[in-house]
């Protein structure tokens, strides 16, 4: 039985939701960061599924760019985590509130 587009979309919706749940419930900045990567990946899966089912390469090219942006985001985000940890000795996002006044 061929797999339908709807099942790929449902899978990526579930993965995205798990990522959102992780971002909302976890307190460790690095785990929150990994959940964001999970969300990026589920959106990539949606793009590739549409690209394959519609026979258009634009979706796959977009996934290529999303991967480049994700790599840049990973480097900068982890650098921010390192400098936060150096200043506050914690990665608990409840204690990191220097942007709040």
């Amino acid at each position, binding site marked *: 039985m061929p797999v339908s*587009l709807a099942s790929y979309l449902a899978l990526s919706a*579930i993965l995205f939701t798990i990522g959102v749940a992780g971002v909302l419930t976890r307190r460790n900045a690095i785990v929150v960061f990994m959940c964001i990567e999970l969300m990026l990946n589920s959106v990539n899966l949606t793009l590739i599924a549409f*690209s394959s089912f519609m026979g258009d390469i634009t979706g*796959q090219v977009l996934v290529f760019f999303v991967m480049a942006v994700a790599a840049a985001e990973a480097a900068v985000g982890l650098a921010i985590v390192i400098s936060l940890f150096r200043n506050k000795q914690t990665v608990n996002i409840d204690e990191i509130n220097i942007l709040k006044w």
Partner: protein
Amino acid sequence: MFLIVASLAIASALLMILQKNPVMSAIYLIANFFCIALLYLLLQAQLLAVLQIVVYTGAIMVLVVFVIMLLNLGDETKLTEKFDMKKIISVVLVTGFLIEMVYIFGFSGDGIGRMPMSSQAANLGTVESMGAALFTRFLLPFEVTSLLLLAAIVGAVVLARKQS
């Protein structure tokens, strides 16, 4: 095949957000990335399946594990992960979000979820066709990506440097 890989992906994602130890979370996330790469192969996107493994599990996750090691978080499992009101609210919100998305995808009415796989899908994901698209139609975004990566390198170095 799809069902096995999909259930593995969901299981590893769930295990990832339920683990207390960030290193175990990272390992389950790597398993999840491998499952997603397999799904890309099932969708006949060969180049992106390889890139998924090389870029995500090879580069990004190594960076994440390296930072976990650098900050010595492996033993810091006591990080006040307590069950409180905020978590209940967020789980309710997330469930609503999932129902909404499944509703949009499943009942959009125009039958888009049941369309067959495109006949030329096998020719789309090859290195040849991706390269042709990247260097002709998408040449400008491709070059702009290099600027983005340069900015990211400089930004990461500036942020992670010791303040003097």
